[in-house]
């Protein structure tokens, strides 16, 4: 494997192969956990770890897994990793873990994971597979963080829980400003995601439909 190739595997998920904006996978959790930046950030890291290591493990096992039961083996690996991540979150960032609630468990059903295992890890060596997994997790994560950035800034006036929009601007304190209540609701997350896809496709012309 040339280093150039490794770089390409790493960069594709951030641009023309982005799991969220191009492949449109993992939308459900992108809408659910992006009200605040902190949970979105934790979710992004969790998914990155799970995609990276599940790709690595499946890639090691790829020649020994019988084709007919490969989905079960993949699920087993993913589920194990997700449970591990969940336990770690509960132990160290309990509040965030409670906010994420069921969505950590639902990483198991995130289409990005199975997609990368089927499409990449089963046919490639461990190191490229690991890079591919990490990059796809991060590509998903970066969209999550961008969506959460806008939703937290305009919906709550904060970033990572720190007040960004000055308190004195608010109507309650004699100013003119109000937080946007619509942006907290899931439909607006979808619209923001749509806008990101819009911007992405206007920059990267290859992605535009003919």
């Amino acid at each position, binding site marked *: 494997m040339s280093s150039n190739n490794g770089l390409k595997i790493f960069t594709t998920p951030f641009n023309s192969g982005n799991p969220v904006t191009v492949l449109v996978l993992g939308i459900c959790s992108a809408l659910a956990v992006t009200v605040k930046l902190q949970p979105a950030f934790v979710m992004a890291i969790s998914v990155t770890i799970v995609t990276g290591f599940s790709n690595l493990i499946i890639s090691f096992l790829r020649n020994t897994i019988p084709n007919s039961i490969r989905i079960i083996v993949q699920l087993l690996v993913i589920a194990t990793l997700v449970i591990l991540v969940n336990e770690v979150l509960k132990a160290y960032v309990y509040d965030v873990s409670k906010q994420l609630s069921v969505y950590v468990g639902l990483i198991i059903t995130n289409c990005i994971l199975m997609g990368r295992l089927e499409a990449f890890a089963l046919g490639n060596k461990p190191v490229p597979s690991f890079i591919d997994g990490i990059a796809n997790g991060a590509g998903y994560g970066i969209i999550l963080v961008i969506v959460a950035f806008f939703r937290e800034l305009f919906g709550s006036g904060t970033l990572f829980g720190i007040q960004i929009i000055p308190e004195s601007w608010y109507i309650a304190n004699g100013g003119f400003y*109000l937080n946007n*209540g619509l942006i907290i609701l899931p439909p607006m997350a979808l*619209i923001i995601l749509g806008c990101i896809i*819009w911007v992405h496709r206007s920059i990267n012309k290859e992605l535009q439909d003919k």
Partner: protein
Amino acid sequence: MILKKIVEKLKPTFSKGGKLGMFHSTFEAFESFLFVPETVAKPKGSHIHDSIDLKRTMSVVIMAVMPAMLFGMWNTGYQHFLSIGEEVSFIDTFFYGFFKVLPLIIVSYVVGLAIEFTSAQIRGHEVNEGYLVTGILIPLIMPVDVPLWILALAIIFAVIIGKEIFGGTGMNIWNPALLARAFVFFAYPSKISGDKIWVAGLENAQNVADGFSGATPLSFAASNEIDKLPDTMDMFLGIIPGSIGETSTIAILLGAALLIFTGIASWKIMASTVAGALCVGFLANALGGTPYLEIPAWQHLIMGGFAFGAVFMATDPVTSAQTETGKWIYGFFIGAIAVIIRLFNPGFPEGMMMAILLMNTFAPLIDHCIVQANIKKRMKRKSIL
């Protein structure tokens, strides 16, 4: 005619390849705003161009909206002076409201037209006139004290997300004016619901007259305080708190008459919307139970935004059903759903906005079913022969 000469003289500068060719769309918009377009139908075929193009259609709608707007301005002043317990002359009342409403209209047109012109320039299309009507409707369905930046934001959202990304005027699924209102409704609920925001200056007022509440008839009704409802005649004339243009049923009926007379809006939609509301109203009367369920069904027609929605919003030719049978179904459900929301959803005193947006979504489906049914019927007839 001097104007015409100037336009003719400037034309080559702006046409493709000319010095200012990049502003082609903008120039054309002004030209066809002033004069009937030069284009005529092709010599082949049986089609002719009607001299009524989109712009002239729009001007009729704007004329139809005028009575409701002017009344809204007067009522804004009237409600304000009522709330502080002062008596002033008719002229003062009107001009107080006029200067309250004017900024909303200016913001609406400046923001909306800026987006229209920019997107037409980017796409190289003609500028569409769709916004001329939307721009006057949006301020009329807002409370008078809505902050201007919120209004601007709502218009940006409605025009870009609601209209431009679908391809501009004529392609949108939802009525842009109602989308702007829905945006404010969900994003800044404290500015468009409750009892304090419908009358100018009431929210921060120091000296409110005794016994003045500022609540709309619908909010009395929703809390089952039927005895507090204003006089029926007041509600019909529109001397009640509410969004700027929605209060006066009689002014809206004047507009409706003009729209129906010129054939611009569908009377079928208006009639079936009223029928739908009355049906649910009568059913609720039969059901009984709470005072609100037992109010006469026709009272729903003169409260809140029902009349305005039925005449100016539901009949939008782009977002309503296109087939003739479809129009009956579409209108009926708007009326029925609006009254159902009013009567049975304690969270929303008014249901007209939701009902129209919901039926906008279903209008293409209704049309599809009608067309398919028609095809089936004809196929059957053919197979019998």
